[in-house]
């Protein structure tokens, strides 16, 4: 499972990151440039995952509500990675 999540994270980063990682405007040399850029890429993926889970749980919730007598709460996953 961790392997699957790691692969998924890598795929998402490859898809989501290029736009971010292409920033090369000239202004000042920042030794943390790489950290800034990779942070944006990672946070974009993580933020997207949080949103996706939120929407997924809402959709599941809609179907659940349509089933009479099934009012058990949906178990919530840990949305944090790692």
């Amino acid at each position, binding site marked *: 499972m961790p392997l699957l999540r790691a692969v998924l994270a890598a795929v998402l980063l490859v898809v989501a990151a290029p736009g971010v990682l292409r920033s090369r405007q000239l202004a000042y040399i920042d030794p943390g440039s790489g950290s800034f850029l990779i942070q944006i890429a990672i946070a974009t993926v993580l933020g997207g995952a949080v949103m996706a889970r939120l929407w997924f749980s809402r959709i599941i919730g809609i179907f659940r509500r349509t089933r009479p007598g099934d009012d058990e709460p949906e178990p919530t996953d840990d949305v*944090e990675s790692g």
Partner: protein
Amino acid sequence: MSPARPGTDPGSFRDPAGFVFRRDGELYRQVNTSYRPAYDLLMGSGLYEHLTERGLLVRHDEADIDLASDSRAYKIIRPRRVEFIGYPFEWCFSQLQDSALATLDIQEAALALGMSLKDANAGNIQLIDGRPALIDTLSFEPYEEGFPWVAYRQFCQHFLAPLALMSRTDIRLGQLLLAILDGVPLDLAVRLLPFRSRLNPGLFMHLHLHARGQRRHMHHVTNRESLRGRMNLRKLLALIGSLRSTVRKLRWNPGGSDWADYYQRDSYTGTALEQKKKLVVAMLAGLDPGPVWDLGANTGEFSRIALARGDSVVSLDFDPGAVEINYRQMTRDGESGLFPLVADLTNPTPSTGWVNAERRSLLERGPAQTVIALALTHHLAISNNVPFTGIAAFFAGLTRHLIVEFVPADDPMAARLLSMRNHDFPDYTVEAFEAALSAAFTIRRREPIPNSRRVLYLMENGSDASTSG
């Protein structure tokens, strides 16, 4: 940059927001005018109250502005005194982990109130009331929507990388923080981590991918403004959540550690240990212990006896496993005033950083009022060949009161050390020990420990009692 004024803390010069200084023995922090908007926001937004109530930020009072060191001053604040400053490479695994989690809690609370941590230096987190708290009041800046967290790299270098290395590679790699002031470089960390660390999504992203990103963009020039809008609060909170989850799931247990079960396998019978405890209690009762340093404290059993006298106790041991157990007991029992730290007395922490003054050596952070050194001197004298005169000089520079135990050569523990050596120790006698120590100390009490061949001493600094003090 203005030249440092007398009394300015030599480790407090990097941040233009202000600096720490001493006046008449009291510690103050100057808040510069340039930091005024951030300071006012910290105090006015409720963040200061929120963090101090949760024990995550050191409390302070505002002091007389006339104490200002120079014309840049906006405020002078007097932070609550921190009893002992320990450095991250002296912490056990759990203390570094708790400090990392505290940093993330602080950042999340700051974001909720419109501020953000502008640095994530592990050394800014210290034990206050037995819990990790931020001691640098000027570590906050107004949160600017749309920009990344400036301290992300520092957090990974100061916390996540050493924790991962300690957990996944070797506990001793925490010592890298001594060699490298600004945390473990990520390219080094990923080279030292096992391949399977890539299977942990958090470590994969925040260390492996992060290191790759740094390498790839090492020579790239990025305009900060070009990053505006690439980040938002939702993404930032997801990042903080991911870091927290990654840190929290790292584990290290001292199971195989050298002396972790020392008390279960030393030469003491249960009766002798109880007698020794009673003697230590009695010796402490006869003096004002003040700040105590327990050298070779193991898991802190005798440190707690000293702590019961109501003073702070620095509980030092070179075994990270023993210090880990000590720290866990401290947090579990909510103990305050105890500082379990990893320290090798034969190679104590040196002064490091800019002009060797940013971080103080272990001995510069003394002196103690009382030193407890139980089951220690045979390790120094036999395992490390330190002569008794050297041991006496070491103690004399460190303390006024000394409670020290002599372990004779025929004691099972000393005999074990001697059996491993082909070198004779003809001078390893109680007479030579007393003679060497008497040159620097007055022996107040000499108590043979019942049911053992060991002797416990209470000594006072000064070969003549009238000169002690």
